[in-house]
């Protein structure tokens, strides 16, 4: 067992967990933050993307103990004061989600894209989101959402 301390969505948490606890498991099972989803176990689908110290990572292939002391932002921490983050609002406006399962990872990944590059082209958006699989939307409205958010962020 290892004691892991993380600041998640602005709050500090310390938990005793088995050494091999993945960040996705830590968030879901220990903190009950079930917005972070697990879709593949092989770091391919991106449903588990969260931010660690401001950068997007796949939480299903990160050991919680490995990022001891880090600041983590999950999908639950994105909206502020009851208002959707511009990326969340853009996904709603452009119908960038259907079943909602890939959505948290997709949104977290897209937010990091706009932090990295302010006004990405369609092709740049599509290439950035290569690590996030969506089976519902055909990606078109997700690309539209990122472009819409780029005008607001």
């Amino acid at each position, binding site marked *: 067992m290892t004691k892991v301390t993380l600041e998640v969505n602005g709050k500090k948490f310390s938990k005793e967990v088995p050494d091999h606890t993945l960040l996705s498991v830590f968030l879901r099972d220990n903190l009950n933050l079930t917005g972070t989803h697990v879709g593949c*176990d092989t770091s*391919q689908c991106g449903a588990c993307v969260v931010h660690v110290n401001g950068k997007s990572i796949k939480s299903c292939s990160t050991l919680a103990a490995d990022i001891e002391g880090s600041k983590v932002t999950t999908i639950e921490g994105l909206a502020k004061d009851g208002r959707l983050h511009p990326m969340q609002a853009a996904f709603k406006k452009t119908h960038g*989600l259907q079943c909602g399962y890939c959505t948290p990872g997709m949104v977290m990944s897209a937010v990091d894209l706009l932090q990295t590059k302010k006004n990405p082209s369609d092709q740049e958006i599509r290439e950035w*989101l290569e690590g996030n699989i969506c089976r519902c939307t055909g990606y078109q409205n997700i690309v539209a959402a990122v472009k819409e958010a780029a005008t607001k962020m």
Partner: protein
Amino acid sequence: MASLVGSRVERKEDTRFLQGKGRYTADINIANQTYAVFVRSPHARAKIKSVDTSKALKSSGVVGVLTGKEIAEDKIGGLIAGWAIRSEDGSEMKVPANPPLAKDVANFVGEPIAVVFAETLDEAKEGAEKVKVDYKVLKAVVDPAEAMKSEAIHDGVDKNLCYDWLLGDRKAVDEAFAKADKIIKVDLINNRLVPNAMEPRACVVDYNTASEEITLYTTSQNPHLSRLVMSAFGGVAPENKLRVVAPDVGGGFGSKINVYNEEIVCSWASKKIERPIKWVAERTESFLTDTHGRDHVTHAELAVSNDGKFLGFKNETIANLGAYARVFGTVTPTYLFGPCATGVYVIPAAYSNVKAVYTNTAPVDAYRGAGRPEATYTIERLVEKAAMELGMDKTEIRMKNFPTQFPFKQTLVHTVDSGDYVAGLEKAKQMADYAGFEARRKKSEANGKLRGIGVSSYFEACGIAPSAAVMSLGCGVGLWESAEVRFNPTGQISVFTGAHSHGQSHDTTFAQIAADELGVPMENIDVVHGDTDKGTFGMGTYGSRSLTVGGIAIVNACKKIVAKGKRVAAKMLEVNEDEIEFKDGEFVALKSNKKKTIGEVAFACYLPGQRDEMKSPIPEGDEPGLIESSFFDPANFSFPAGSHICEVEIDPDTGNVKVEKYTAVDDFGRIVNPMIVEGQVHGGIAQGIGQALHENTQYDETGQLMTASYMDYTMPRADNFPEFNLGFTCTHATSNPLGVKGCGEAGAIASPPTVMNAVIDALGGQEISMPATAEKVWKACKTMKKSNAKAA
């Protein structure tokens, strides 16, 4: 009041999904729960000589281990085939037993043999490792084309043949072929796909020892159907002691229609071990055990005259059912496939012959489109080849054979109520700049690339389905849908539907419909689904049925609310009922112009007594309250149709196929929410392009699944697609009062042949099978270069 139907209303469900507040099955935890891990067969075909659970039982944290022996002793039934299909000779189909835990023989890799319950997931995994199964490995039957010549894998199923089915008239077809100028032939493989909903299957079961009720939370497209099957065939619990909840479900695409082994086993076991149980599939478990789709081997022929008229069609298909026949497994390659195989054309003589075979692979069942993509692929590949061989334009040959009169009685089964196929294709040509293609082809050629254009015109029979029709064809249930509209005393409305949303946006579209019918704001309406303890019995969501069947039940229930409201308003306003008009949420007395809002009337419906001046507004013969339900059974299927055009560019040096342009023109009748319909079409097209260019399910000759993770199975990604260009035409369906047609599957039905026709066009007519991967295309380019060199 402006109509909400037809508007691009933003989705109600998005606010929770976007903030991580969706509640999927794996998000549910119950105090004192145990974790289940299944012991699965590592062999495609093996006799189970013994199962030794003694070491597992002693493993740390293990609460219980159960095997096929215990489940058989408890007489828990197995999984079922939902449709009884008869062979051409009149004999009944052959269906092997499919126990929830295999006891004597395992028939595919991943089939569950035993289950271990433990305090933690790690302990359950550890325990499962310690279950010792002694197998005698047998030779597996894997290739569907060889199945009939191989050893029978199930007792009593000769030649591994479930049925040998015929639809149509062989003699009429022979006569038509005898008169033909030309016979066009294709040999096709409709590649096997894994549906891959992003949410892996899961279930959480809670057994209440006091009430003896089982609550099953599960990833299902149809919780009532699951309850019915588990109760009637599984014998897990009486229906009134079994509550099935399908909360937020992360995509289905057909793979979550079936009741699965794990749901039956965990429900039964929860009662046995008197502990809640949680099971969540890993992605590889989903690959191994979710029902797969397609997997047809087809030879088809089209008889044509020299001027491009279609005279006859025949289709001989071997359909792979996998190891067992499941809910829609037997109907997908027959009644969902055969009737659509003549496509959008007048073809006077036709038949489809389908031999469905068992193999040692995962069960094959409905996957987005179910039978109709296979049918459309067959006819549209033939039509395109016919155009090529006759030297005709590919759109002209289609136009020439479209029906011009509706209703259009097809040769095989369906009478298509409405459509305008010419308008759809004309619009698609215009949007795709079909006329400008040759110039674009030359430009690609100048850059050393090969450019091709492909067309496909499709129709499909969805809105599943008229009960009388489907039951006469072998369906085990009626396929109506139900709705209940509860107008609460304070004006909020709950709309219960038997359909289930797992991405389809029912919270929004059904609220739009009900808001229009009742003249109230959408915000006052909550759509409730997915819980057998709430609302009426329903058949769930598949076959593009939610709106065309379930939506109409909502409309009809709302109409009953308004009818009762009129009677009550008449009494309140002291006029005759026929003097009341209902408009925009108000009951108006025509002569006096006095009015009552529907909210006031609803409130009054809950006050049947008399006090002071207040008199009961309930007319004689009416009961208090304002709750109405409706069961809608459609008179016909719904028949969306359209034409899609795709342009691809091939790099002959790498074989890479780039989809340059994709245009889709669809006729879905009246559209409730264009934004949502566009999303459905995008998703369908993407899945179809996935089938055409990327996805393939590969078993090796021993029955091991080679493509059992996202490292090995190509899921289409954002950078595989261009921006799709969508257009619509509209002819209203006549079989329902909204005039709507299903839209969920159309994209996946139309796109595989559209893309493949474009690829084959770019390759100068060289046949190539799906998926047209870079390797295959590169080889085809080399062959083409050689034959071009020879010709020169």
